[in-house]
């Protein structure tokens, strides 16, 4: 049976094999490796920023270069590290979790991946162009990014277009796979929460990526063809840019967190050895977050001069979104309650996610209060907020997922002792880096500045020390992954005692081709929503 579906000819060898592969596992690995590389590129930029901010005054770099570093760091982490990591996990795990032999559109899958190195090669190359790379922040507000932008901006726009097309194609592929390739008998309400959260994320991507493409296209026209979408001199409006950007931007932040919710919702039950509490409410909460995320964008713009009615509307909607988010946190804690918990590395990262993401959610609610936001806006308090949800939030969930599924990918357990060291250094580093930013922000330190007033010196020194601890400890992640690929304690098909799901029915390491015959799925026995 295996023989019939095997390709008649040998797959190409060497690098051609990776260039032409249409296998979801290989493409998943490519996405994950690309994301890991970008994590380090973006991380080095963050360390350049933190090195400059170690002390007040200008020591190491010029303000112009500093601005390019903050911009590139944000763009690379958002579009190059976090998003591709989730797509990589989706590629690997969604077919395995729904019992499909591959993604619905394997060749499109290959194309969406290879767009990414092109996009980010182009983006990085702008650093060496005349006038330097993008220096207007990852939010690229016009007219800073049009009238006052460096000449390389058109390349920046092109690279955003390419990365956006990659995301859209990837999302379409994921939706098509989930809707059509589930093993017979698996209903939507029988899918793992990782599949569910990704399904909803993919819809968000298809909905908002065109808006991003539209807004950068308008920038391109303003820069090169004399239109005035965002140019007040020609009757345009810079505030329009912010509305369009955040109409994309806020759903985008949920694109970066929903799959993380899914990963944590798998890991917590596994190591608490209990079924997930409130499966259905998790699905509904995810869907409500996604829908509400289209109605809160102007909480990024409270200070542009919105009318009172709009400020109130966006304030209440933003607070409302904290409710389904709270439901999720509640469900995770209820799952832990009276579980027989063990603390393997994936669980450590997942638990740290819950605590630290909640800190980020709480500072988010503070920012949602309009009069308070007048004080906090564009200070380090905002930087603290979104780093808490993105680094010890989204990134920790990705790392938790990597530790959780590495045995399935490589056939070996990742080193428990190195993993624990990696975990503790990361937790300490990340909190040393970002917690003091709450205080420097409340004290009034503006974001995106290369130099600062003396009273912020202590907080910044702590942040910088923490950043170097956190950054350097990610080398341990590299070592763990490398060693786990090379060998270690062999992992059985189901390496974690309490794990559930179809992915654990295939051998470890998962062979290149799995589920060529759809696996048997009995909702009474296998569904995470079973009674």
């Amino acid at each position, binding site marked *: 049976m295996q023989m019939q579906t095997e390709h008649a000819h040998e797959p190409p060898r060497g690098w051609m094999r990776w260039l032409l592969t249409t296998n979801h596992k290989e493409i998943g690995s490519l996405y994950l490796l690309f994301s890991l590389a970008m994590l380090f590129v973006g991380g080095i930029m963050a360390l350049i920023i933190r090195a400059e901010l170690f002390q007040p005054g200008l020591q190491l770099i010029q303000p112009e270069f500093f601005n390019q570093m903050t911009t590139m760091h944000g763009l690379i982490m958002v579009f190059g590290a976090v998003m591709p990591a989730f797509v990589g996990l989706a590629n690997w795990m969604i077919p395995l979790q729904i019992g499909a032999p591959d993604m619905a559109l394997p060749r499109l899958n290959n194309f969406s991946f290879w767009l990414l190195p092109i996009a980010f090669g182009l983006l990085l190359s702008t650093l060496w162009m005349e006038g330097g790379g993008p220096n207007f922040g990852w939010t690229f507000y016009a007219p800073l990014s049009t009238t006052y932008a460096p000449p390389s901006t058109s390349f920046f726009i092109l690279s955003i277009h390419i990365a956006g097309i990659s995301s859209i194609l990837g999302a379409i592929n994921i939706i098509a796979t989930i809707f*059509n390739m589930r093993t017979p008998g698996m209903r939507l309400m029988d899918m793992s929460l990782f599949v569910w959260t990704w399904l909803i994320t993919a819809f968000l991507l298809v909905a908002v990526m065109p808006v991003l493409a539209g807004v950068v296209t308008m920038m391109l026209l303003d820069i090169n063809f004399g239109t005035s979408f965002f140019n007040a*001199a020609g009757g345009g409006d810079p505030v329009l840019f912010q509305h369009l950007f955040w109409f994309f931007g806020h759903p985008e932040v949920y694109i970066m967190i929903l799959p993380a919710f899914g990963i944590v919702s798998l890991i917590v039950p596994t190591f608490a050895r209990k079924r997930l509490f409130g499966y259905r409410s998790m699905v509904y909460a995810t869907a409500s977050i996604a829908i509400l995320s289209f109605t809160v964008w102007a909480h990024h713009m409270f200070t542009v001069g919105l009318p009172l009615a709009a400020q109130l509307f966006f304030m209440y909607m933003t607070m409302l979104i904290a409710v389904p988010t709270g439901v999720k946190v509640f469900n995770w804690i209820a799952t832990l309650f009276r579980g027989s918990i063990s603390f393997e590395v994936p669980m450590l990262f997942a638990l740290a996610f819950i605590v630290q993401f909640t800190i980020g959610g709480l500072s988010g609610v503070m920012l949602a209060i309009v009069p308070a936001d007048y004080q906090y806006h564009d200070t380090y308090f905002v930087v603290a907020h979104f780093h808490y949800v993105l680094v010890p939030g989204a990134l920790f969930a990705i790392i938790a997922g990597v530790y959780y599924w590495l045995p399935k990918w490589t056939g070996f357990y990742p080193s428990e002792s190195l993993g624990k060291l990696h975990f503790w250094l990361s937790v300490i580093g990340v909190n040393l880096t970002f917690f003091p930013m709450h205080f420097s922000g409340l004290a009034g330190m503006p974001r995106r500045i290369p130099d600062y007033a003396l009273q912020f010196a202590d907080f910044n020194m702590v942040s910088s020390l923490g950043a170097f601890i956190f950054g350097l400890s990610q080398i341990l992640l590299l070592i763990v992954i490398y060693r786990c690929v090379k060998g270690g304690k062999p992992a059985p098909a189901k390496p974690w005692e309490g794990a559930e799901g179809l992915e654990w029915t295939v051998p470890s390491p998962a062979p290149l081709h799995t589920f060529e015959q759809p696996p048997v799925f009995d909702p009474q026995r296998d569904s995470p929503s079973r009674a």
Partner: protein
Amino acid sequence: MSEQQRGVRKTLWQLSGLLVLMVIFTIALVPLYDVFCEVTGLNGKPRRVDDAALQAALSRSQQRPLQMQFVTRVGQGLPVQFRSQQAAQRPVVGGRNQTHFTFENQSDTDLLVRTVPSISPPEASPHILKIECFCFQEMVLKAGEKKQVGLMYLVGAKLPDHVAAVTLSYTVYPVADAPAVAEEASL
């Protein structure tokens, strides 16, 4: 074609439809935003004046304490001095009011400029109707030329009572590097 392939194809069509819809929506957001701002007066976008609006505004002439403040700004290093004849005036609510502005080209080259208005607070902007205005029109300022231009405006009788002051701000911009926008200047 298998059942599954047919399903995938159908999903693809549906998603392409959604994608096209979102692209159209994005493009539509630009004019929608303008319409929205104009209807609500947000962002200080002044309203178009039509006869009905004029009649409605004129219906009830009254004297009440309102201050009309004028702010002038020069954009992007333009070598122009732009002044308002008065910093502020007390307009007749429900009637016509007049003032002057002067432009002076302080360079030795001719300039093509355009002035863009903005009204604050937003809730006042639907009630400030400009009958005669230089705003949005392209204007030539010869080298060294000094030019006086008039503004005739009307404060609508329905201006909410709690509005005690209205700021009318003008920014003068160079036109030279934005040639394609002349048709937008239709106010």
